[in-house]
Each structure stands twice: as C-alpha cells, then as structure tokens.
C-alpha cells in the first residue's frame, strides 16, 4: 500500500492506483473531460491536473500513478488557475448557444464553468469553424462545440471497434473526422451512437431526439432492448408521457450485457412507439372492411367465432402463433390459452424465422 496526503487527508491506496482515483477516494471531486474509465487513457484535456509537492509541473491525475508519500493539493491556486484558463480557452472557440443546446443540464463544459465561475473568456478572438452538414439521419455533429477530448474516437475504436473517426489536422485546426473527412455514411461508421454516449458536451447528439427534450427534462426508464436477442439494457427517455429518446446506462450492474453500448437499432430505433398509425382500437371485419369496435364486442366476436370453429372442427383446427417479441409472461399466457382454453398444442412462434 502507498500512503498519500491529499488535501491534508491521509489515505492509503494499492500500488498502481492512479492519482485521480486516489483523489476521489480522498473525497476530492476532480473535473475531467477526456477521462473515461472504460476507454484508453488520453491524459489530454488537462482539467484533472493537481499540484503534487516537489513536481515542477501540475500533474494530470488521470494518468499519474500514485507514489508513496505524495502530498497533493487538488484545488491549489495554480490548479484553479489552470482549470479556469483551460475553460476560457475552450469557451473562446465554442459555439455558445446553451439556450437551444440538446445537452443542457448534462454538459460538462457548462458544469465546470459554473463550478469555476467562468463567465466569459478573456481569450475571445478568432477561431476555426468546422460546422458542416452530415446528411446521416442519426448523429448530429456540431464540431464547433467539440472540445477535442477524443472520447468519441476512443469509444468508436474501443467499444464498437468501428474505427470510423479519428483526429485529423493539427493544432487549433485539429478536429474529429472520418478518414477522408467525408460523411459518416461513407465511412466504417455503424451509427451505434457510442460517440454520443461519451461526448461530454453538445457536439454529438441524436437527430432523432432533436428538439424533443433536454436531459434535465426527461426521466430515464431502464428496460431491455426490443430488437435482437443480445438483451442490451437501455434507458427510455420520457417527457410528458412520451418517449423522446434513448440513452444507455454504463453501470455493469444495471447493464450487464452491454455496459451502455448499443447498436443503431437500440439507440435510434425507438420512435415507432408513437408512430401515427399505431393501433388504438379493436377492429372487426365487416363487409370486407375493418371497422372500429369496442373491446367487449371484439373479444366476444373473436371468442364466439373460435368457439364455433372448435365446436365444428375440434380444437386442433385452431392454431395460435405466439411471439418472440412479447414478454415471457405473455408467451406463458398465450400457450396456456391454447392448451387450457382452446385445448390444442398447436402453439408456436417465429423462433425459426
């Protein structure tokens, strides 16, 4: 074990612990942009710098291994100055339109500016502009809000393995782009939206959710994805009794299969829920046409017809197709209905198709 003093508090950590974790253990809240516990470390945003006694420079705590007897100050004057200046540098090139930003309430830039009382940037001047329409229907890319944390790049590579995006160009002109700076649709992007999941600011957002609600307005309901058999967990974002988006939960307890990762269907395929032609009333065919009916009428009608068929041709002249789409509970009831109420084993579902 290593002994450290962090903000006058003595703690012990196992060898190999990074300073960031040690600081957190000591109760210090360290701001980070590029750090993500599930991704390759970058050590590049420099927001997590802390002052370590005896070291010439401030240390980026996310990539600094703890050493015995380190004395650390996580909010020293130098540290606070560095963080403020970094925030001001980022603001100086940021398309600041929080009023209409999809990320409001969950934006780290906003959060830290508030925390460090950064109201405006003393470095306001010229800045490179990258905004360009990407015609895909899934991901809105507004790189004038990008803070170059490269989490999206690392998630694309490290979680999805798509390697669709990377940093292109250098210095202030560095930006996130596909290999030939083209459209996502022409790259190896699979539109899983893992980049949106990790983006700490409003640079990457979902086009499907656009304008429908911001993080602080919606409630998240954890559920299992309705598409393939992988069984990813996802969060339905609900505002005013309406699903307005899908986010994911990266906690391995809550999201054991996918740990937040989703595919394009899981993340962007939710809007059928409120699609305009959803069935909202029972229908009965009359004179060749389907017409609306009450539940009692429809249920009675269906039951009577089934009973009649059963009476005339026997229970095995009736078949029931259950569904791989519905719940266990419903499948159970469906097969039970076939067996106990109709009296047939003619029950199956589309497992084979």
């Amino acid at each position, binding site marked *: 074990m290593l002994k450290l003093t962090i903000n006058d508090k003595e703690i012990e950590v196992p060898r190999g612990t990074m300073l960031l974790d040690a600081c957190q253990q000591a109760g210090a809240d360290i701001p980070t942009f590029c750090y993500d516990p599930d991704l390759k470390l970058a050590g590049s945003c420099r927001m997590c710098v802390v002052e370590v006694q005896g070291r010439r420079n401030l240390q980026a705590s996310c990539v600094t291994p703890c050493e015995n007897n380190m004395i650390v100050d996580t909010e020293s004057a130098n540290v606070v100055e560095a963080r403020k200046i970094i925030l001001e540098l980022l603001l100086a090139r940021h398309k600041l339109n929080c009023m209409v930003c999809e990320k409001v309430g969950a934006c780290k830039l906003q959060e830290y500016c508030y925390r460090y009382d950064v109201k405006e940037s003393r470095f306001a001047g010229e800045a490179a502009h990258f905004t360009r329409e990407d015609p895909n229907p899934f991901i809105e890319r507004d790189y004038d809000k990008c803070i170059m944390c490269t989490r999206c790049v690392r998630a694309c590579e490290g*979680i999805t393995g798509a390697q669709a995006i990377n940093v292109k160009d250098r210095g202030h002109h560095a930006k996130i782009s596909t290999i030939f700076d083209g459209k996502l649709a022409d790259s190896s992007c699979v539109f899983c939206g893992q980049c949106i999941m990790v983006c700490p600011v409003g640079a990457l957002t979902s086009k499907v959710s656009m304008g429908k609600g911001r993080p602080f307005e919606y409630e998240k309901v954890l559920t299992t994805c*309705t598409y393939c058999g992988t069984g990813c967990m996802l969060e339905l974002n609900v505002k005013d009794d309406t699903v307005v988006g899908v986010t994911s939960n990266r906690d391995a307890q809550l999201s054991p299969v996918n740990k937040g990762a989703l595919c394009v269907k899981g993340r962007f395929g939710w809007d059928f829920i409120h699609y305009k032609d959803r069935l*909202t009333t029972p229908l009965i065919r009359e004179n060749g046409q389907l017409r609306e009916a009450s539940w009692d009428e429809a249920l009675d009608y269906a039951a009577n017809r089934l009973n009649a068929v059963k009476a005339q041709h026997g229970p095995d002249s009736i078949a029931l197709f259950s569904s791989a789409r519905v719940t266990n509970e419903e499948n159970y009831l469906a097969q039970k209905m076939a067996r106990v109420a109709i009296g047939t084993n003619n029950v199956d579902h589309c497992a*084979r198709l």
Partner: protein
Amino acid sequence: MTNTIEELEKDATVIFLIGTNTTENHPVIGYKIKKNVRENGAKLIVADPRRIELAEMADVFLQFRPGTDVALLNGIMNVIINEGLQDKDFIEKRTEAYEDMKQVVEKYTPEIVSAITAVPAEDIVKAARMYAAAEAGSLCYAMGITQHTTGTDNVKSCCNLALLTGNLGRPGTGVNPLRGQNNVQGACDMGALPVTYPAYQAVAVEANREKFEKAWGVKLPTAKGLMLTEAINAAYHGDVKALYCLGENPMISDPDSHHVEAALKKLDILIVQDIFLTETAQMADVVFPGVSWAEKEGTFTNTERRVQRVRKAVNSRGDARQDWQILSDMTTRLGYPNSYASPEEIFAEIRSLTPSYAGITYDRIEQTGLHWPCPTEEHPGTPILHTEKFSRGLGLFHAVEFKEAFELPDEEYPLILSTGRQLYHYHTRSMTRRAIALDTHRPENQVQVNQKTAAKLGILNGEKVRLTTRRGSIELKAQVTDILNEKLVFTFFHYGEAAANVLTQGEALDPIAGIPEYKVCAVRMEKII
C-alpha cells in the same frame, strides 16, 4: 447459449463463427468479439458463404457453398481426429457414441470436403488445428446454421465439434446459438412450442402432462401440436380453420408468401393482436390493439438465458390494451375463467411451473438479470451450462451425413438465393420502417450480387433487377459486390415491398425443427429494362 456473451470478450481464446453475421445481427456481441480479437489476440475463424465484416479480421475465413455446413464441419472433425487433436479425456469421461460419429467423419477428408464446399483443403486443416488447440474455444452460430432442411443436422455437427475438442462447460467455450429476436429464448422457455410446456417439459411425457393438468385444473390435449410452418400448410389444406396471431407477421416472415396468403385466406377466422396493422393484420377478421414494449411490464430472456426486466415507460394510447390482459380476457371468454393483477403475478405462476425459473423474482432482477437455470431463490443463476454433466448425463455424439439442400440451382434457376437480415432493420420491419432514421437510411430492399455475375447479366450497381423462383418474383435494386461468389445472391427479408419470402420455398422443411430453408433456393436474376 451454453455460455455468456461476456466470455466472448474476455475468456474465449478462439472464436469460431459459422452462419452468423454477428456485427449486423447481434451488433453488441460483434463489438465484443472484435475487442477480444484486437485487444487480447483471440483467434477468429469465420465460416460463411459471404465475406462478412468479421471475415476481414479472421485468422481463417472459410467461404463455403451454402448448405454444405455438415460437410465442412465433418471435414474439420476429420482433421482433428486424424491428427490426434481431439480431447481424449473429455470424450472418454463425458461423452458417448464417439465411435459412431468417428466412422462417419472418416470419409470426410479435407480433399473431399473441399470438393463439396469449395473451401481450400488447407484452410480446413488450419481451422481444425486452430479450434482444436484452443485453450477456450467458443463456437457461435445463428440462422446460417439453422435455416436449412438440414438445420438440425447442422446444429448436431456444431455440437459434435465442441464435444470432440472438449470445448464445453468452461469459461470461453460452448456451443452458442445467437438468437435473432429479443425474446425467442423466452418464448421457447415459456412453452410457446407445440411439443413442450414451459421449461421444455415435453408434452408427450405423461408425468409432465399430469403436472400441468393439476396446476391448471383441466384435462390437457395429448396430440402433438403443429409447428408454425406446418400450421400454415394445414390452413392451406383446410385442416386448420382458425388462427390467432400474436405479434407475428407470417405474411412477410414465412416462406413462400403467395402460399401463406392463400392459406390465410382460407381460414374461417384470423385474429391478429399487434401494435400496427401489419401485412398479416390487414387480412384479419379481428384485430386487437396491443401495446409496445415501452408500454408494458414484464421480462425478456436474452440469448444467454438471462432473464431481464422490461419496464413500462409511458402509457399506451387510445384503447390499446396490455397484451397480457387481452390474452387473459380471451382465455376467460374461451371458457377458462382467469384473472391476474399484474405481469408479476403471472411470473409467480411461471416460477411455480418452470423449475429453471423457480428462483427468479422481480426483486432479484431489479438491478441485474439472472441466468437460468436458477432453481431456488438462493441460487446465483447459471451463466455456464454443462460444467459437470450434460442435462442428459453424457454428451451424445451424432453421426451426421452431409445432405444437399432441397432445391439446387439448375439451368432455369441458375443461382442460389440466401435470405437474411441487415443491421438497420428488424424482422418484418413493422417497427423499423416506422423508426424514421433507420428507414431513411435503408429505405428499400437490395440484392447482393457478385460483380462477375452482374457483368454477365449486364447489371450495374443500383440498377433494378427481377428475382424469380418457382414460387414468384420480386423486383429490387442490385448491390454489386465481391463479398459473395458468382453462384450466390443474397437479399433481405425485411421489406414487404420486395418481399424475399415470395421467393423462398416452404415445401420442404427441416424434418425435426420445421425450419424453412431460407439459406438455399434456386433463383433466376434478370435486369429489368
């Protein structure tokens, strides 16, 4: 799956994929496989008639002729046995009928198999050595294995291979079918099958029937039920007169759509319970509006047997009603009065009759889903099956001979057609066509065709073509590519507008599982001028 998804990322040292286009059909599983290969150096063997995405990063890629799975797997086993690479200890202690299998496999030398499958003999050898040498070899398959008249044989061959190499019962091993839809596993577990009650308790076994008769308080039918494809045929022949269809769209998903349509038209009554007026619902006599998964409580069981919660996020609209309530009401009206207060109450009944679910409660899976079998409330669930013994005791080898697919190309229909899925759509597209982004991105069907075949037929990328089989024809755009060979064309079954199942044959099915042969039928392709 005998094993878990996570093991594909963490534990498997060799992953053998056959008949699964994992990155498109189980994307998140695909990510994990990629990660294991890239970051941990796991070896990857991909066997598929198309050069799918994962083939690009495979150590061995076996591009075999569709429908020759048994031959290919027998060939691999032939090499393993001849080179003495089998797990002798495992075979001795945990399996039986090894000799029977060995006898059959002996004939399948790499050279002979190469002639059948069009895979170079040395690749068969390479794959065999790689998989056999695996510390932990995981075999995964999907519909590419099952959707054949020999589907059951194909599955047996996969099991043979795993048994032969002792790749079962340990982390990172297993025979792992990747199930296509969110709750296929659960639907099967719940006994939505003609021959089993919940938890695969066979209808034919009297003790089982008695158990359920006692629990449900009625006499239960003894006659073997009809499988879905059989039921459609029976309807066509007038033996089935009524069909209750819950969240299914056989008009698009079942083989030979014209035949399906004719069959459904002959019914006295068709009842459809769904959330949209699907192609099938449009033919119904009664339509019940159910609710989507976002509007209901319940559980799904994923492909790794993990039972997880589905939670209601929003209220349903209009008069739509909870599906469980509709079923319960119908059951009552059909003469079996019943009532439940909630899905949780139904789940309690399930537990009481389904030993593998007995230990699972909503409370226990509030945070993290559990893997069945989970027999008691103290049981932690079973991520890995068959660690000490198989459900039947010893693992049974099957002697499986290769059989050709039912309908092979000929002069009139010179190409093989395979159908399958793609990343951006789901099943019959009833949901994803209404997911605007997905449908905008992939609005219409395409057929993948090799560039040489296309050139011969004078077809350019994106041009309209007609596909014709003995059953019908559809028109769609050609996607000229080199991921499949000159004899094969591939299309997606999602699209009602150019429905691939107009083309497929439903006449010959797998004799045991009743699965249609979606991966092989004979087709003709022509340019539309």
